[in-house]
């Protein structure tokens, strides 16, 4: 197997990513427990309702802070460009299995960029609104009317984030050869050529 490998994520990026994953899983599961009675059982994963209530906000802050590390590294690569529009127009074809009309993409395609920005913006909303009703530390400093707005926005942002992450995970499962970018740091030459041709070119120019 003389398949050539390209470095997509370095060690720090990978560890940062997986730290976000673990913290997000705990924060999301405990948060969902409070959102719907049918999901309350999830609070047991953190030691029951009271422990889930105590830990959830700390986990949330930890998710936001650890994501900040990824954000600072990756936001430039996720800036939306003019070519992304064309990609978005042909997204339907791609989903039906026809990639012929897809324009060449760089390190990230438009879908990946959207997941990135949904994650970043919903984490920001979650963090800000969460502070408003963090009981018992901060909630007493805010009025009840504001807290009502905050809990609603917190839920909306949380659902947007969870759906975004479901898309993120599915995309990694769907496009074979992707997962190793985050587990091993490298992807195959042909994976890069097929899925991110402009990034592939760039990598060769650099070396």
């Amino acid at each position, binding site marked *: *197997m003389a*398949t050539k490998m390209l470095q997509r994520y370095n060690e720090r990026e990978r560890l940062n990513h997986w730290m976000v994953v673990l913290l997000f899983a705990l924060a999301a599961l405990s948060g969902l*427990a*409070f*959102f*719907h*009675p*049918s999901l*309350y059982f999830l*609070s047991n994963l953190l030691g029951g*309702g*009271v422990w*889930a*209530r105590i830990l959830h906000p700390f986990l949330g802050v930890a998710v936001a802070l650890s994501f900040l590390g990824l954000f600072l590294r990756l936001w430039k690569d996720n800036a939306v460009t003019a070519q992304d529009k064309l990609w978005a127009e042909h997204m339907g074809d791609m*989903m*039906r*299995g026809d*990639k012929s009309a897809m324009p060449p993409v760089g390190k990230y395609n438009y879908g990946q960029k959207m997941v990135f920005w949904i994650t970043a913006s919903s984490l920001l909303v979650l963090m800000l609104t969460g502070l408003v*009703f963090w*009981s*018992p530390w901060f*909630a007493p400093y805010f009025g*009840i*009317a504001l*807290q*009502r*707005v905050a*809990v*609603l926005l917190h*839920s*909306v942002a949380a*659902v947007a984030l*969870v*759906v975004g992450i*479901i*898309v993120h995970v*599915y995309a990694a*499962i*769907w*496009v*074979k*050869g992707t997962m190793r970018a985050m587990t091993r740091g490298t992807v*195959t*030459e*042909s*994976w890069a*050529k*097929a*899925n991110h041709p402009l990034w592939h070119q760039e990598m060769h120019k650099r070396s």
Partner: protein
Amino acid sequence: MASMQSQDVLARSATTTPSTQVRSAVAQVAKLIDESKCIGCKACQVACMTWNDLRDDVGTNTGVYDNPSDLTANSWTVMRFYEVEPKPGNLEWLIRKDGCMHCDDPGCLKSCPAPGAIVKHANGIVDFQSEHCIGCGYCVKGCPFNVPRISAADSKAYKCTLCADRVGVGLEPACVKTCPTGAIGFGTKDDMVAYGEKRATELRDRGFDKAGLYNPQGVGGTHVMYVLKHADQPDLVGLPNDPSISPLVSLWKGLAKPLALAAMAGAVLAGFFHYMKVGPVEDKSDEKEGA
């Protein structure tokens, strides 16, 4: 309060199946607070702290009679004093005993995420089952009357129980028992509505032409009602004019829940079936190169 096994539970927080429903009939109860008979002696506050074994911290004098100055986790009822001029030049000193209204449609119960931490008993009493409380403070956001308080000692929510423990064994609430002027009445909801209307009529005959019963329908009526001298302006004594559960809370705890579940479960199912229909994006050239 802990649960009262002798009574059915009409509604239970964060619970999607019916609660206990087998018993035949329990009368709906209500407390009626007659503003015009209250002398502000605070015996009800003392009775409440005595019966419920609560002792609040010694507070500070805020320049008015209100003491403590607000409801707390240890003060489930407080007298509030208002100097108002309903008509210009006509000063009135109004006194209201504040506490949980025991709404028929309780916003606290609707907001609570902990199964069984808030229940509405068959007799209409809305009670916090503190052993199930997780201390999130959602009840505070749900309440249209700003009543629940989270204790700094144990991070659990507390409020007036309407002496569910006393009422459950045929006694009146401690505040009712104690009131020296008969300003606090207790009985079936129907009787208290009838008596309240009668008192309002008497007050109207004596010159309080806007006197009336405060039993706000925006929350389905309440099991704590007031006879107000100025029922056209409940805000004179710090009561909301037309209370209801905030639309934000209704959206959050109503439509948002099934929509969000559908969105999240839908995303997972869509991915699953998409994979089964279209199949993965595979790196076919690799196989050739590798071969």
